[in-house]
Protein backbone atom coordinates (compact mmCIF):
# COMPACT_ATOMS: atom_id res chain seq x y z
CA UNK A 1 0.00 0.00 0.00
CA UNK A 2 2.85 2.33 0.87
CA UNK A 3 4.55 1.58 -2.45
CA UNK A 4 1.32 2.34 -4.31
CA UNK A 5 1.09 5.68 -2.49
CA UNK A 6 4.72 6.51 -3.26
CA UNK A 7 4.23 5.66 -6.97
CA UNK A 8 1.02 7.71 -7.11
CA UNK A 9 2.70 10.73 -5.49
CA UNK A 10 5.64 10.53 -7.89
CA UNK A 11 3.49 10.21 -11.02
CA UNK A 12 1.35 13.13 -9.91
CA UNK A 13 4.51 15.17 -9.21
CA UNK A 14 5.96 14.52 -12.69
CA UNK A 15 2.64 15.37 -14.37
CA UNK A 16 2.31 18.59 -12.34
CA UNK A 17 5.95 19.47 -12.94
CA UNK A 18 5.43 19.32 -16.71
CA UNK A 19 2.13 21.19 -16.48
CA UNK A 20 3.58 24.07 -14.43
CA UNK A 21 6.75 24.18 -16.52
CA UNK A 22 4.59 25.19 -19.52
CA UNK A 23 4.53 28.68 -18.06
CA UNK A 24 8.23 28.96 -17.25
CA UNK A 25 9.87 27.37 -20.28
CA UNK A 26 13.38 28.58 -20.82
CA UNK A 27 12.95 31.26 -18.20
CA UNK A 28 15.08 31.78 -15.15
CA UNK A 29 12.36 30.44 -12.88
CA UNK A 30 12.69 26.76 -12.23
CA UNK A 31 10.83 24.51 -9.89
CA UNK A 32 11.41 20.81 -9.19
CA UNK A 33 8.16 19.39 -7.89
CA UNK A 34 9.57 15.87 -8.25
CA UNK A 35 12.29 16.71 -5.73
CA UNK A 36 9.70 18.14 -3.34
CA UNK A 37 7.69 14.92 -3.77
CA UNK A 38 10.79 12.80 -3.05
CA UNK A 39 11.41 14.81 0.14
CA UNK A 40 7.73 14.48 1.05
CA UNK A 41 7.61 10.66 0.73
CA UNK A 42 10.98 10.32 2.48
CA UNK A 43 9.86 12.45 5.44
CA UNK A 44 6.47 10.80 5.62
CA UNK A 45 7.36 7.14 5.10
CA UNK A 46 11.10 6.89 5.79
CA UNK A 47 14.34 6.22 3.89
CA UNK A 48 13.08 3.16 1.95
CA UNK A 49 10.20 5.18 0.57
CA UNK A 50 12.68 7.98 -0.20
CA UNK A 51 14.83 5.54 -2.19
CA UNK A 52 11.82 4.19 -4.12
CA UNK A 53 10.39 7.66 -4.72
CA UNK A 54 13.77 9.04 -5.79
CA UNK A 55 14.32 6.16 -8.17
CA UNK A 56 10.89 6.40 -9.79
CA UNK A 57 10.85 10.20 -9.97
CA UNK A 58 14.44 10.57 -11.16
CA UNK A 59 14.25 7.82 -13.77
CA UNK A 60 10.97 9.19 -15.14
CA UNK A 61 12.45 12.67 -15.42
CA UNK A 62 15.53 11.22 -17.15
CA UNK A 63 13.42 9.25 -19.61
CA UNK A 64 11.30 12.29 -20.44
CA UNK A 65 14.15 14.78 -20.62
CA UNK A 66 16.03 12.73 -23.23
CA UNK A 67 19.36 12.59 -21.44
CA UNK A 68 21.27 9.65 -19.97
CA UNK A 69 18.80 7.59 -17.97
CA UNK A 70 19.99 7.08 -14.41
CA UNK A 71 21.74 10.39 -13.76
CA UNK A 72 18.69 12.07 -12.22
CA UNK A 73 17.62 8.70 -10.80
CA UNK A 74 20.87 8.28 -8.89
CA UNK A 75 20.91 11.85 -7.55
CA UNK A 76 17.28 11.71 -6.41
CA UNK A 77 17.77 8.25 -4.88
CA UNK A 78 20.66 9.59 -2.81
CA UNK A 79 18.63 12.67 -1.84
CA UNK A 80 15.59 10.52 -0.97
CA UNK A 81 17.64 8.25 1.25
CA UNK A 82 19.39 11.19 2.91
CA UNK A 83 16.14 13.03 3.61
CA UNK A 84 14.56 9.81 4.92
CA UNK A 85 17.48 9.24 7.29
CA UNK A 86 17.29 12.84 8.53
CA UNK A 87 13.54 12.48 9.00
CA UNK A 88 13.97 9.32 11.03
CA UNK A 89 16.87 10.64 13.18
CA UNK A 90 15.67 14.15 13.91
CA UNK A 91 12.36 15.77 14.69
CA UNK A 92 11.26 17.27 11.40
CA UNK A 93 7.64 17.91 12.27
CA UNK A 94 7.42 21.68 12.00
CA UNK A 95 7.40 23.76 8.84
CA UNK A 96 10.78 25.45 9.28
CA UNK A 97 12.86 22.23 9.58
CA UNK A 98 10.99 20.70 6.65
CA UNK A 99 11.67 23.70 4.46
CA UNK A 100 15.30 23.62 5.56
CA UNK A 101 15.53 19.93 4.60
CA UNK A 102 14.07 20.64 1.15
CA UNK A 103 16.42 23.59 0.65
CA UNK A 104 19.37 21.35 1.47
CA UNK A 105 17.99 18.57 -0.73
CA UNK A 106 17.65 20.98 -3.68
CA UNK A 107 21.24 22.16 -3.40
CA UNK A 108 22.56 18.60 -2.92
CA UNK A 109 20.52 17.34 -5.90
CA UNK A 110 21.89 20.09 -8.17
CA UNK A 111 25.46 19.43 -7.02
CA UNK A 112 25.05 15.69 -7.53
CA UNK A 113 23.64 16.18 -11.04
CA UNK A 114 26.50 18.47 -11.91
CA UNK A 115 29.06 16.07 -10.41
CA UNK A 116 27.66 12.94 -12.10
CA UNK A 117 27.33 14.52 -15.57
CA UNK A 118 30.89 15.82 -15.35
CA UNK A 119 32.24 12.56 -13.92
CA UNK A 120 30.91 10.56 -16.88
CA UNK A 121 31.98 13.28 -19.30
CA UNK A 122 28.58 14.15 -20.68
CA UNK A 123 29.65 17.75 -21.16
CA UNK A 124 27.59 18.80 -18.18
CA UNK A 125 26.35 22.34 -17.79
CA UNK A 126 27.93 24.68 -15.33
CA UNK A 127 25.90 25.51 -12.28
CA UNK A 128 23.79 28.64 -12.66
CA UNK A 129 23.51 29.96 -9.12
CA UNK A 130 20.65 32.27 -10.06
CA UNK A 131 18.61 29.31 -11.22
CA UNK A 132 19.63 27.27 -8.16
CA UNK A 133 18.49 30.11 -5.89
CA UNK A 134 15.13 30.50 -7.65
CA UNK A 135 14.65 26.73 -7.51
CA UNK A 136 15.50 26.69 -3.80
CA UNK A 137 13.00 29.49 -3.15
CA UNK A 138 10.19 27.98 -5.19
CA UNK A 139 10.76 24.46 -3.83
CA UNK A 140 10.69 25.86 -0.29
CA UNK A 141 7.45 27.72 -1.00
CA UNK A 142 5.80 24.63 -2.49
CA UNK A 143 6.98 22.52 0.47
CA UNK A 144 5.45 25.00 2.87
CA UNK A 145 2.13 24.98 1.02
CA UNK A 146 2.00 21.19 0.58
CA UNK A 147 2.88 20.30 4.18
CA UNK A 148 0.65 23.00 5.67
CA UNK A 149 -2.28 21.88 3.52
CA UNK A 150 -1.77 18.25 4.51
CA UNK A 151 -1.60 19.20 8.19
CA UNK A 152 -4.62 21.49 8.11
CA UNK A 153 -6.83 19.22 5.99
CA UNK A 154 -7.57 16.41 8.53
CA UNK A 155 -8.39 18.95 11.29
CA UNK A 156 -10.74 20.82 8.97
CA UNK A 157 -12.47 17.58 7.95
CA UNK A 158 -12.82 16.53 11.60
CA UNK A 159 -14.27 19.89 12.62
CA UNK A 160 -16.70 19.79 9.71
CA UNK A 161 -17.91 16.27 10.47
CA UNK A 162 -18.24 17.00 14.22
CA UNK A 163 -20.26 20.14 13.39
CA UNK A 164 -22.53 18.04 11.17
CA UNK A 165 -22.97 15.33 13.81
CA UNK A 166 -23.74 18.00 16.42
CA UNK A 167 -26.50 19.33 14.20
CA UNK A 168 -27.77 15.78 13.60
CA UNK A 169 -27.92 14.98 17.33
CA UNK A 170 -29.85 18.14 18.17
CA UNK A 171 -33.52 17.63 18.77
CA UNK A 172 -35.67 20.18 17.05
Amino acid at each position, binding site marked *: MRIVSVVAVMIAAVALQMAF*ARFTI*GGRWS*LDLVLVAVAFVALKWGPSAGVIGGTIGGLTQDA*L*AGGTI*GVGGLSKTIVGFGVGVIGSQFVVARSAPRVLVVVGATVVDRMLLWG*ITNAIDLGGRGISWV*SVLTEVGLNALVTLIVFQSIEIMPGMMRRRSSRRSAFGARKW
Partner: protein
Amino acid sequence: MIDIRRRTTFFFVVVSLAHVLLISAQVQTQSGMPLVENVAFGVFARVQGVVAGVSDGIGSTWRNYFALRGVVAENAALRAEVSQLQGQLQAEKAISGQTHGLEQMLQFQLSVRQRTLPARVIAGDPAPGALTITIDRGYADGIRENLAVIAPGGVVGRVFREPQAHAAMVQLLIGHAAAAGAVIPRIEAGGVVEGGSESPALRMLYVNKSFEVQTGDTVMTSGQDGIFPAGFLIGTVARAERGGGSTNYGLISIQPAVNFSHLGYVLVVLDPPAAGGGL
Protein backbone atom coordinates in the same frame (compact mmCIF):
# COMPACT_ATOMS: atom_id res chain seq x y z
CA MET B 1 17.08 -11.26 12.28
CA ILE B 2 18.34 -8.44 10.06
CA ASP B 3 18.31 -4.95 11.52
CA ILE B 4 15.78 -2.83 9.61
CA ARG B 5 18.25 0.08 9.31
CA ARG B 6 20.84 -2.23 7.77
CA ARG B 7 18.23 -3.59 5.40
CA THR B 8 17.34 -0.06 4.26
CA THR B 9 20.99 0.84 3.78
CA PHE B 10 21.54 -2.38 1.84
CA PHE B 11 18.51 -1.57 -0.33
CA PHE B 12 19.85 1.94 -0.95
CA VAL B 13 23.30 0.63 -1.93
CA VAL B 14 21.79 -1.95 -4.31
CA VAL B 15 19.54 0.62 -6.00
CA SER B 16 22.42 3.10 -6.31
CA LEU B 17 24.66 0.45 -7.85
CA ALA B 18 21.88 -0.44 -10.29
CA HIS B 19 21.77 3.23 -11.33
CA VAL B 20 25.53 3.30 -11.82
CA LEU B 21 25.36 0.16 -13.98
CA LEU B 22 22.49 1.66 -15.99
CA ILE B 23 24.49 4.83 -16.62
CA SER B 24 27.63 2.85 -17.50
CA ALA B 25 25.74 0.74 -20.03
CA GLN B 26 24.49 3.85 -21.81
CA VAL B 27 27.82 5.66 -21.72
CA GLN B 28 29.50 2.66 -23.33
CA THR B 29 26.89 2.10 -26.05
CA GLN B 30 26.16 5.83 -26.61
CA SER B 31 22.67 4.80 -27.70
CA GLY B 32 20.55 5.63 -24.67
CA MET B 33 17.41 3.61 -23.98
CA PRO B 34 14.95 4.52 -26.72
CA LEU B 35 12.36 1.93 -25.65
CA VAL B 36 12.17 3.22 -22.06
CA GLU B 37 12.13 6.83 -23.29
CA ASN B 38 9.34 6.14 -25.78
CA VAL B 39 7.21 4.27 -23.23
CA ALA B 40 7.66 7.03 -20.62
CA PHE B 41 6.94 9.74 -23.17
CA GLY B 42 3.92 7.85 -24.51
CA VAL B 43 2.40 7.51 -21.05
CA PHE B 44 3.10 11.08 -19.96
CA ALA B 45 2.09 12.60 -23.31
CA ARG B 46 -1.42 11.24 -22.71
CA VAL B 47 -1.38 12.43 -19.10
CA GLN B 48 -0.14 15.86 -20.17
CA GLY B 49 -2.76 16.12 -22.88
CA VAL B 50 -5.43 15.53 -20.27
CA VAL B 51 -3.79 17.82 -17.67
CA ALA B 52 -3.32 20.62 -20.23
CA GLY B 53 -6.88 20.15 -21.44
CA VAL B 54 -8.26 20.27 -17.90
CA SER B 55 -6.16 23.28 -16.85
CA ASP B 56 -6.95 25.14 -20.06
CA GLY B 57 -10.60 24.17 -19.68
CA ILE B 58 -10.79 25.49 -16.13
CA GLY B 59 -8.90 28.64 -17.15
CA SER B 60 -11.01 29.30 -20.20
CA THR B 61 -14.27 28.59 -18.34
CA TRP B 62 -13.26 31.10 -15.71
CA ARG B 63 -12.24 33.72 -18.24
CA ASN B 64 -15.14 33.13 -20.65
CA TYR B 65 -17.99 33.02 -18.18
CA PHE B 66 -16.81 35.30 -15.45
CA ALA B 67 -14.63 37.82 -17.20
CA LEU B 68 -15.12 38.47 -20.87
CA ARG B 69 -17.81 35.99 -22.01
CA GLY B 70 -16.40 34.71 -25.28
CA VAL B 71 -14.02 37.50 -26.20
CA VAL B 72 -11.05 35.47 -24.99
CA ALA B 73 -11.97 32.53 -27.22
CA GLU B 74 -12.08 34.82 -30.22
CA ASN B 75 -8.83 36.44 -29.14
CA ALA B 76 -7.14 33.04 -28.78
CA ALA B 77 -8.33 31.99 -32.25
CA LEU B 78 -7.08 35.25 -33.71
CA ARG B 79 -3.76 34.88 -31.93
CA ALA B 80 -3.37 31.35 -33.32
CA GLU B 81 -4.22 32.68 -36.78
CA VAL B 82 -1.78 35.60 -36.45
CA SER B 83 0.86 33.18 -35.22
CA GLN B 84 0.33 30.97 -38.27
CA LEU B 85 0.33 33.95 -40.65
CA GLN B 86 3.51 35.32 -39.12
CA GLY B 87 5.08 31.91 -39.48
CA GLN B 88 4.01 31.80 -43.12
CA LEU B 89 5.41 35.29 -43.59
CA GLN B 90 8.68 34.12 -42.15
CA ALA B 91 8.66 31.13 -44.47
CA GLU B 92 7.97 33.47 -47.41
CA LYS B 93 10.80 35.77 -46.30
CA ALA B 94 13.06 32.78 -45.93
CA ILE B 95 12.23 31.60 -49.44
CA SER B 96 12.60 35.12 -50.76
CA GLY B 97 16.04 35.54 -49.18
CA GLN B 98 17.09 32.11 -50.24
CA THR B 99 15.83 32.67 -53.77
CA HIS B 100 17.64 35.98 -54.14
CA GLY B 101 20.85 34.43 -52.89
CA LEU B 102 20.53 31.50 -55.20
CA GLU B 103 19.58 33.67 -58.17
CA GLN B 104 22.44 36.04 -57.61
CA MET B 105 25.15 33.56 -56.78
CA LEU B 106 24.24 30.19 -58.19
CA GLN B 107 21.15 30.86 -60.31
CA PHE B 108 19.40 27.98 -58.70
CA GLN B 109 15.73 27.36 -59.23
CA LEU B 110 13.09 28.45 -56.75
CA SER B 111 12.81 26.26 -53.71
CA VAL B 112 9.65 24.49 -52.71
CA ARG B 113 7.53 26.50 -50.30
CA GLN B 114 7.60 25.14 -46.74
CA ARG B 115 4.40 23.82 -45.24
CA THR B 116 3.83 24.48 -41.56
CA LEU B 117 1.53 22.98 -38.97
CA PRO B 118 0.43 24.93 -35.89
CA ALA B 119 0.76 23.11 -32.57
CA ARG B 120 -0.11 23.90 -28.97
CA VAL B 121 2.46 23.57 -26.21
CA ILE B 122 1.00 21.13 -23.67
CA ALA B 123 3.95 20.56 -21.33
CA GLY B 124 7.28 22.03 -20.30
CA ASP B 125 10.50 20.71 -18.79
CA PRO B 126 10.17 17.36 -17.02
CA ALA B 127 13.27 18.34 -15.05
CA PRO B 128 14.71 21.80 -14.39
CA GLY B 129 17.16 22.76 -17.11
CA ALA B 130 16.06 20.05 -19.56
CA LEU B 131 14.69 22.76 -21.89
CA THR B 132 12.20 20.71 -23.82
CA ILE B 133 8.52 21.21 -24.56
CA THR B 134 5.78 18.82 -25.56
CA ILE B 135 3.38 19.76 -28.37
CA ASP B 136 -0.05 18.33 -29.15
CA ARG B 137 0.85 17.06 -32.63
CA GLY B 138 2.38 13.68 -33.44
CA TYR B 139 2.97 11.21 -36.22
CA ALA B 140 -0.75 11.09 -36.98
CA ASP B 141 -0.44 14.76 -38.01
CA GLY B 142 2.65 14.20 -40.15
CA ILE B 143 5.24 15.07 -37.49
CA ARG B 144 8.49 13.14 -37.51
CA GLU B 145 11.86 13.33 -35.85
CA ASN B 146 14.17 16.26 -36.64
CA LEU B 147 11.56 18.59 -38.11
CA ALA B 148 12.19 22.26 -37.37
CA VAL B 149 9.88 24.10 -34.97
CA ILE B 150 9.44 27.86 -35.22
CA ALA B 151 7.43 30.60 -33.54
CA PRO B 152 6.38 34.00 -34.87
CA GLY B 153 9.66 35.42 -33.53
CA GLY B 154 12.01 32.86 -35.04
CA VAL B 155 13.51 29.42 -34.50
CA VAL B 156 12.31 27.45 -31.46
CA GLY B 157 13.98 24.05 -31.84
CA ARG B 158 13.50 20.62 -33.39
CA VAL B 159 11.42 17.49 -32.82
CA PHE B 160 14.02 15.37 -31.10
CA ARG B 161 12.66 11.89 -30.69
CA GLU B 162 10.10 9.60 -32.31
CA PRO B 163 6.75 11.31 -31.77
CA GLN B 164 3.65 9.66 -30.36
CA ALA B 165 0.35 9.70 -32.30
CA HIS B 166 -0.72 13.08 -30.96
CA ALA B 167 2.31 14.39 -29.09
CA ALA B 168 5.92 15.20 -29.85
CA MET B 169 8.82 16.43 -27.79
CA VAL B 170 10.75 19.47 -28.98
CA GLN B 171 14.32 20.23 -27.98
CA LEU B 172 14.65 24.00 -27.60
CA LEU B 173 17.50 25.69 -29.42
CA ILE B 174 18.58 27.31 -26.15
CA GLY B 175 18.94 23.87 -24.56
CA HIS B 176 22.13 22.08 -23.68
CA ALA B 177 23.50 20.14 -26.71
CA ALA B 178 21.13 21.86 -29.17
CA ALA B 179 22.62 23.47 -32.27
CA ALA B 180 21.78 24.86 -35.71
CA GLY B 181 23.73 25.84 -38.81
CA ALA B 182 23.75 29.64 -38.91
CA VAL B 183 24.83 32.58 -40.98
CA ILE B 184 25.18 36.32 -40.44
CA PRO B 185 23.69 37.58 -43.74
CA ARG B 186 25.25 41.07 -43.60
CA ILE B 187 28.77 39.68 -43.92
CA GLU B 188 27.86 36.17 -45.11
CA ALA B 189 29.76 34.59 -42.24
CA GLY B 190 28.76 31.01 -41.53
CA GLY B 191 29.00 29.08 -38.30
CA VAL B 192 27.06 27.04 -35.78
CA VAL B 193 24.73 28.43 -33.13
CA GLU B 194 24.51 26.31 -29.99
CA GLY B 195 22.45 26.59 -26.81
CA GLY B 196 23.23 25.91 -23.20
CA SER B 197 24.94 29.21 -22.44
CA GLU B 198 24.21 31.63 -19.67
CA SER B 199 22.50 34.91 -20.43
CA PRO B 200 22.14 35.29 -23.41
CA ALA B 201 21.34 31.65 -24.02
CA LEU B 202 22.92 31.20 -27.46
CA ARG B 203 26.41 31.53 -28.86
CA MET B 204 27.83 31.24 -32.35
CA LEU B 205 30.89 29.13 -33.01
CA TYR B 206 33.39 28.66 -35.85
CA VAL B 207 33.16 32.19 -37.24
CA ASN B 208 36.46 33.22 -38.75
CA LYS B 209 38.13 36.28 -37.26
CA SER B 210 38.51 37.82 -40.71
CA PHE B 211 34.80 38.73 -40.60
CA GLU B 212 33.73 41.98 -38.90
CA VAL B 213 30.91 40.80 -36.61
CA GLN B 214 29.05 43.69 -35.00
CA THR B 215 26.64 43.93 -32.09
CA GLY B 216 23.10 43.92 -33.47
CA ASP B 217 23.90 41.78 -36.51
CA THR B 218 21.04 39.46 -37.44
CA VAL B 219 21.72 35.72 -37.28
CA MET B 220 19.68 33.39 -39.52
CA THR B 221 19.60 29.66 -40.15
CA SER B 222 21.88 28.57 -42.98
CA GLY B 223 20.01 25.37 -43.85
CA GLN B 224 23.23 23.37 -43.91
CA ASP B 225 22.37 21.20 -40.92
CA GLY B 226 19.58 19.43 -42.80
CA ILE B 227 17.04 20.29 -40.06
CA PHE B 228 16.34 24.03 -40.10
CA PRO B 229 15.45 25.50 -43.48
CA ALA B 230 17.60 28.47 -44.51
CA GLY B 231 16.58 32.03 -43.72
CA PHE B 232 14.75 31.68 -40.40
CA LEU B 233 15.63 34.21 -37.73
CA ILE B 234 17.66 32.89 -34.78
CA GLY B 235 18.52 36.15 -33.02
CA THR B 236 20.85 39.11 -32.95
CA VAL B 237 24.48 39.40 -31.91
CA ALA B 238 24.68 40.68 -28.34
CA ARG B 239 28.46 40.55 -27.96
CA ALA B 240 31.40 39.62 -30.18
CA GLU B 241 34.93 39.14 -28.88
CA ARG B 242 37.84 38.04 -31.04
CA GLY B 243 40.14 37.02 -28.15
CA GLY B 244 42.43 33.97 -27.97
CA GLY B 245 44.98 32.67 -30.48
CA SER B 246 42.55 30.66 -32.58
CA THR B 247 41.58 31.63 -36.13
CA ASN B 248 37.95 31.86 -34.99
CA TYR B 249 36.13 34.33 -32.77
CA GLY B 250 36.51 33.68 -29.05
CA LEU B 251 32.91 34.51 -28.21
CA ILE B 252 29.82 35.57 -30.14
CA SER B 253 26.78 35.76 -27.86
CA ILE B 254 23.38 35.67 -29.53
CA GLN B 255 20.18 37.09 -28.05
CA PRO B 256 17.41 34.69 -29.17
CA ALA B 257 14.62 36.25 -31.23
CA VAL B 258 12.02 34.03 -29.58
CA ASN B 259 10.82 34.68 -26.06
CA PHE B 260 11.15 31.13 -24.77
CA SER B 261 9.36 31.85 -21.52
CA HIS B 262 6.03 32.46 -23.29
CA LEU B 263 5.49 29.67 -25.80
CA GLY B 264 1.79 28.99 -26.28
CA TYR B 265 1.67 28.02 -29.93
CA VAL B 266 4.44 26.99 -32.31
CA LEU B 267 4.68 25.98 -35.95
CA VAL B 268 6.26 22.75 -37.14
CA VAL B 269 7.94 23.09 -40.53
CA LEU B 270 6.87 19.96 -42.36
CA ASP B 271 9.36 20.27 -45.21
CA PRO B 272 12.97 19.74 -44.14
CA PRO B 273 15.64 21.46 -46.24
CA ALA B 274 17.26 19.51 -49.06
CA ALA B 275 20.50 17.83 -47.96
CA GLY B 276 23.38 20.28 -48.08
CA GLY B 277 21.12 23.05 -49.27
CA GLY B 278 21.44 26.42 -47.67
CA LEU B 279 22.31 30.01 -48.06
